[in-house]
């Protein structure tokens, strides 16, 4: 699997070159959010806001009123928790094209509870007019700017930084409300988003080798959540459905899928993996995913429960899986 170093940092500079209406706003986390290259390349279009996120979000709204497209860069917690009223009233209500890039989603940081955005998707999905995206690999990180820019309204993006794996081919960019169907099967359907998709690929490779028929859907648009492919995937899982998210299970992907299950009238068991109504703490990503039960082994256990079988899958089996880029097999009629 290819690991791409700082895909956003490099892409942002190239992408913004021919877009004079694009500004970057930063709250003292410029290098940490890979906006330092933009700052150095286009100093006039880089707006330093200091550690003052409430002001930054309302300023972003004001800049839109004069025709600019502000790309707000900071850690997700500071957009969604500290400046929520400003996001709601200065940005979301007036439907302004502020693009918010929230870094360190979920437990991707060892920074502990203050830095872990485990509730950001719930908060942002609750706001009318808001589009909520989550990147899961380098291809999505590199293509999310085009998508966010094309949406006439506010967009919140859960962003990845640093060394990011490439799971999806570069010619399959992130698309609005377009799930990626990564595998097709008729027993269990798994929905995953963000960093969880790599874990699911690891687990599903072993599960499929043991004969379990799995539909795996990668979600990168958490709002709107209206694609017909979602309903078809829900129907495909005859034994049940599992959601895997780097977030509280209430208010995020698990809740969105539950809502769609209810709407479609499909009465299937739904297992939601993620943070179960709990705060987390400072530790490594792999350890926290294991502790909170949304890593590859947690998915194996959930699938085994749904199908009522013990497949004797070990950690060593999962560790031996080599995750390679996957082409989407999305075809509505193929489901």
């Amino acid at each position, binding site marked *: 699997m290819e690991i791409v170093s700082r895909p956003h940092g490099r892409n942002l500079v190239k992408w913004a070159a021919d877009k004079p209406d694009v*500004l970057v706003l930063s709250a003292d986390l410029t290098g940490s959010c890979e906006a330092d290259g933009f700052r150095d390349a286009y100093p*006039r*279009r880089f*707006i*330093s*806001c*200091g550690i*003052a996120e*409430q*002001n930054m*979000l*309302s*300023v*972003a*709204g*004001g*800049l*839109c*009123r*004069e*025709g*600019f497209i502000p790309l707000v860069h900071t850690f997700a917690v500071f957009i969604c928790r500290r400046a929520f*009223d*400003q996001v709601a*009233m*200065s940005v979301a*209500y*007036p*439907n302004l094209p502020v693009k918010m890039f929230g870094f360190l989603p979920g437990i991707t940081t060892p920074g502990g509870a203050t830095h872990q955005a485990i509730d950001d998707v719930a908060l942002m999905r609750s706001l*009318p*007019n808001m589009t909520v995206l989550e990147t899961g690999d380098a291809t999505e990180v590199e293509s999310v700017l085009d998508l966010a820019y094309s949406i*006439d*309204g506010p967009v919140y993006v859960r962003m990845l930084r640093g060394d990011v794996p490439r799971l999806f081919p570069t010619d399959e960019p992130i698309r609005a409300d377009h799930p990626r169907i990564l595998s097709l099967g008729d027993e269990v359907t798994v929905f995953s988003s963000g960093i969880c998709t790599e874990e699911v690929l690891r687990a599903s490779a072993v599960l499929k080798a043991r004969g379990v028929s799995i539909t795996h859907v990668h979600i990168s648009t958490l709002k709107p959540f209206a694609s017909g492919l979602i309903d078809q995937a829900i129907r495909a899982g005859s034994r049940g459905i599992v959601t895997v998210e780097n977030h509280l299970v209430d208010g995020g992907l698990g809740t969105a899928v539950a809502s769609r299950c209810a709407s479609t009238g499909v009465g299937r068991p739904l297992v939601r993996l993620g943070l179960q109504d709990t705060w987390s703490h400072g530790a490594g990503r792999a350890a926290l995913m294991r502790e909170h039960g949304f890593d590859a082994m947690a998915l194996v256990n959930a699938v085994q429960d749904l199908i009522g079988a013990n497949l004797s899958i070990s950690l060593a089996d999962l560790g031996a899986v080599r995750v390679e880029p996957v082409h989407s097999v999305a075809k509505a009629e193929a489901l």
Partner: protein
Amino acid sequence: MAGGWKVDVALLADRVRRAVLEHTLDNDGGYMSQACSSAELLATLYGRFMNIGMPDRPIEPRPWLGTPRHGNTEYRTGADFNGGVHDARDRFILSPTHYSLVLYALLVETGRMSPQGMKQFNRDGSSVEMIGAEHSPGMEVMTGSLGQGLAQAAGMALGRKLKGASGRVVVMMSDGEFQIGMTWESIQFMAHHHLDNMVVFVDVNGQQCDGAVDSVMRIDPIDVRIRSFGARAAVVDGHDPAAIMKAGSRAPDGRPLFVLAMTDPCRGLDLMRKNAPKLHYLRFRTPQEKAGYKAVLDAWPKRGS
């Protein structure tokens, strides 16, 4: 003409005060002290200070046409009451939207809104909302959550600097907003980015919802605090149009400019003084009390011609 614009502005302020009193009597309550304190300030802004456009004729307020959202092509802000948005003209941001009633009265008295607009105040389905939203007459942004007006205006001012647009951003604030942490974030931002193309007028009436500002949470010395953040602050008599005009017209020097208009929340309506320190919203507790205010309205002196 003897007196010139200063007389015109004083008369405009007097008409605004009277109109808000009339409205408060008609509706058994209203934001009266805000009119008493800010009448000269807002009249100076609209009558003299701001370079804004004028609608062709008094506009009949639109009904509420839904929220801004994809597909709502009917939606528009209330900026057209200020002549629309143009790079070469000023933009006006009313931050404390409990002053909306005062603004509406002013829009009527300046020929920007039809007099019938006042009848739609706080009616179901009307855009003439009690706490004005951005679709309300004379409004452009959402400012009812206090503290957000200044930062949105700062974003506009920065955008105008980047574009080279000559129009200023004129903001009216209330003194209570200086209790909000975000306000100081914004002043620091405005100073850091040299936003000298915005002028902020503050109605320092010393009043807020719970009572006197000094009893709720002290903000003085407000001028010293503002200056210490790198902005300019002028303290003026908020009932003196010439003083307001002079302070707001200082040549830009790289720093944002605040004009602190020291005002009397009972100016022109002495009867209200007995309500102090609860002046935020005028209610009539007895028919006799209401009759007293009615008598003041009936005896309102005829001023000007």
